[in-house]
């Protein structure tokens, strides 16, 4: 469990970081909760780590119109505990609170997690349900894209060489929206075997808005759009919800490993979806 030799730099501006990252073999370090273990296992060996922790602009949380702008280096613990997040985007706070343990949440960051694109991470369920956006800064400028478009494959994103994730944008939650993140952890790692995040609104006693994000089940997180569609217009009785949630894993190639078969994971996704929807409904006005 000893890594290879590497260089280390901790710049204090995004610009300086981008310059350092232009060097071959350099990789950004954004908390290190995944990268450092991979290095210790010698599964990866960057020549240089560019630690982003000293860049103040990456550590802020602020409101920008209808969105919350969350710097990439904001830790899970900050998201779990910040009053602004708890009030204005409770689903994100709940997602962050579900990650690992306190030590991990105090070191790991949302930008690091998003850029790592682990298919079993907690965030994707919530970020998909929130229709979050990812802010990128590169040598040629800044750009923004939907989180759903950003993750391409397991551990693969749309980040171009030399680019950094600099922020994640989530909407300020509409009052009256019920949200819930239902997680069934893999017993060893604590990562979700399946995690489902729901956002539900009701109008005149019927479901008028539903967003459902699923993580852990397959190679990347996804929106369960069929379930969302089935929910619209329903009163939200338990049988209706279960019926809708039964489509959660439809068409998804579920993962299989020593912890759970694909069939069990798919079933669990449907159960988790139903539970997250029911909990959201009970919280929705």
């Amino acid at each position, binding site marked *: *469990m*000893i890594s290879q030799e590497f260089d280390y730099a901790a710049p204090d501006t995004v610009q300086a970081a981008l310059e350092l990252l232009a060097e071959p073999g350099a990789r950004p370090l954004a908390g290190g909760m995944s990268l450092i273990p991979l290095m210790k296992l010698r599964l990866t060996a960057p020549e240089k780590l560019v630690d982003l922790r000293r860049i103040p602009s990456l550590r802020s949380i602020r409101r920008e119109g209808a969105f919350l702008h969350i710097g990439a280096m904001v830790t899970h613990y900050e998201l779990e505990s910040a009053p602004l997040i708890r009030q204005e985007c409770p689903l994100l706070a709940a997602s962050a609170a579900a990650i690992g343990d306190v030590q991990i949440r105090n070191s790991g960051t949302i930008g690091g997690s998003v850029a790592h694109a682990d298919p079993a991470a907690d965030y994707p369920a919530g970020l998909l349900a929130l229709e979050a956006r990812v802010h990128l800064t590169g040598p040629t400028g800044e750009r923004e894209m939907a989180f759903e478009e950003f993750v391409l494959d397991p551990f693969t994103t749309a980040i171009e060489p030399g680019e950094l994730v600099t922020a994640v944008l989530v909407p300020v939650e509409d009052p009256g929206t019920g949200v819930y993140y239902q997680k*069934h952890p893999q*017993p*060893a790692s604590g990562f979700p075997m399946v995690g489902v995040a729901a956002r539900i609104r009701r109008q005149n006693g019927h479901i008028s808005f539903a967003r459902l994000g699923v993580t852990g089940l397959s190679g990347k997180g996804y929106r369960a759009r069929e379930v969302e569609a089935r929910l619209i217009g329903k009163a939200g009785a338990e049988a209706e919800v279960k019926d809708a949630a039964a489509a959660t894993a439809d068409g998804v190639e579920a993962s299989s490993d*020593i*912890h*759970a078969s694909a069939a069990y994971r798919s079933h669990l996704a449907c*159960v988790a979806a139903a539970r997250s929807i029911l909990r959201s409904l009970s919280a929705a006005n």
Partner: protein
Amino acid sequence: MSTVTTETPTYVGKRIKRKEDPRMITGTATYLDDIKLPNMHFAAIVRSQYAAARIDRIDTSAALALPGVVAVFTGADLEGVGNVPCGVSLPGLRIPPHPILAQGRTYFVGHPVAVVVANDPYLARDGAELVEVEYTPQPGVSDPEKALEPGAPAVHPEWPDNVAFVHKQENGDVDAAFAGAEVIVKQRMLQPRVVANPMEARGAIGDYKSAEGTLTLHSSTQIPHLLRSIAAAVLGVPEHKMRVIAPEVGGGFGCKADVYAEELLVCFLSRKLARPVKWVEGRREHFQATSQGRGHVDYYELAAKRDGTILGIKLKIIQDIGSHQQLLTPLIPTLSVLMLPGLYRCKTFRAEVVGAFTNCFPTDAYRGAGRPEATYGIERIVDCLAVELGIDAAEIRLKNFIEPQEFPFSTGTGLIYDSGSYAATLGIALETVGYAALREEQRAARAAGRLMGIGIATYGEICAFGPSPYTPAGGWESATVRIEPSGQVTVHTGISPHGQGEETTFAQIAADELGVSMDDVVIVHGDTAIVQYGIGTFGSRGTAVGGTAMFLAIEELKKKILKYGAMLLETEEVEFSAGRVVCNKTGASVTVAQIAAASYRALKLPPGTEPGLVATSFWEPTNFTFPFGAHIVVTDVDPDTGEVKITRYVAVDDCGKIINPLIVAGQIHGGVAQGIGQALYEQMSYDENGQILSGEFTDYAMPKAANIPFIESLHTETPSPVNPLGVKGVGEAGAIGAPPAIVNSVVDALSHLGIRHLDMPLTPEKVWTAIQGARA
């Protein structure tokens, strides 16, 4: 035998915080990896990634060319060092040669193939990456039952049947018992392999001094003296020139009551290189190359009368041996046979153990070592019988228990249970949990579609290993008690505590016996150059055997103290009381400190008495001790997901006389947590060839704090007549009681669906699949 001190105890029986804790809490304890010797080199081991492979070529040139790398050794370079030893003899036991580096063939994933030594641990690891090994993979086998099938890949080509040994034991007319039985229940049960995973993994430093020809081995071990004798013999070092030091040891759970290739390797390297050489085990290496626990396939058959009386037991154990025999590997399943009847009166049994070689690292002692397996089996099959007969799980146990007046009780397996009151202990557990009301609640829950289970497990265990004729290396223990000139007390114990807290409990006993303050007693252990020969810490023997040795040394010292007291008081009418020798007539007295000063100053000596106050005792126990208890677990099973939640955990344990309730509570809590791990989460997984699938904590599920319920821990205290302290042992009890209690609870939750058994670990998928199958 004399009984405990007649004085009012000041410390024994009290909740006293551990003397050990300040140094651990403040980070000032010295563990193996904290030791830094001058000019020390560091070893990194190149390990096989194949379970079974032929080694075609090893190229060490690139590693040797790396600056900082001092040497690279392979199996071809071994000289002057023997094989990793097995300390067990059984008829027909096959002990494959176990060189410390692979010789042309690897037998398990993690098999040491080469070792790189560098002047820096990072460079050693870099060098290990540069050793090129060409392998030709061979078919391997990981499932012990499949290994015994005809045509299975041979782990050792010279033994194509993969049979390591067959051990049989029988008592009474088993065939008649089964022929005359009104009911017979049968069940196949699995005990998956589990990994010990102490917080501190293994590690060793070899330090050879060529000028003196002395060799010091620092090792994170439970058995420093045994390790010294064995390592000296394997390495050809005169035993008196070899020293083993066990520094602070961060847990062992049995896996460090062993002798490993790496311990011998660092000694070999130090002798070759004339430098101290350190090797520290990484967690991945721990999963690959440290002995693992359990690994049984059990076939139980129970013959009974319709009223629930057990008439006979048949058991076949297929023990996953692994690739080689570690120190006690083949002994462990034979202990399961000894404890096969549990707490029940039945003496008629037939048992067969078949050891199967597999392409996995060897199994060996793991908390409970054979007794948890036996307890699990008998407690599960008794539950199966109860369900079959429609008898309540508590009632069927009460019907078959050995009764208090039957002790000492000779079991059919050759043991003599020392003392017990099994029904009373179960009774307290039933009352505490509110058994009758719980059964009512369960009926209501079932009617409402909830799956609620109540599981009972009663257990007995063999502790205080043990009478020497029944142990592989001598079962006595030693202590030297020195009263210093100041009156302060130094105890050298032959046991080697690594978390059990004997620096505290022994000080409690010694302080009470001598009437001094606990602060004036220090317990020294773990260094063969300081402490007289001892056996070590395992098998819940520390206090029962080592504590008794200390107690007897103190008794010996007290005689001398009395002689000095009589001399100083100028009277023969003296007695020892509360740290003083007192004249019965006048009440005049002298303290132990005054006597100590006089004995070392030696201006005047009692007739025929030497100066100084030192006594040594080597105590040979006449029997094992037999703690027992009853655990009751209430579970809720989620019918949609199969997830198990423990809602109540009641443990009533009888470990004999309790020295320190705080330490006993810690042992029960830790043991129960470990048992919960085995029942619900832990399983070392391999593919069919022996490739590891759960080789790190991201895939091997240890129980976490949030998985452990509140444990309602109660005790009865039935003193053991085997030793003067009346203690029995408690280190393993929790790990023995928990697995059957939990599995019985979950099966009980599902029994109305027709489910009769589930194998550990009870993963959500396994439970859910069983529910689906039952409903289909």
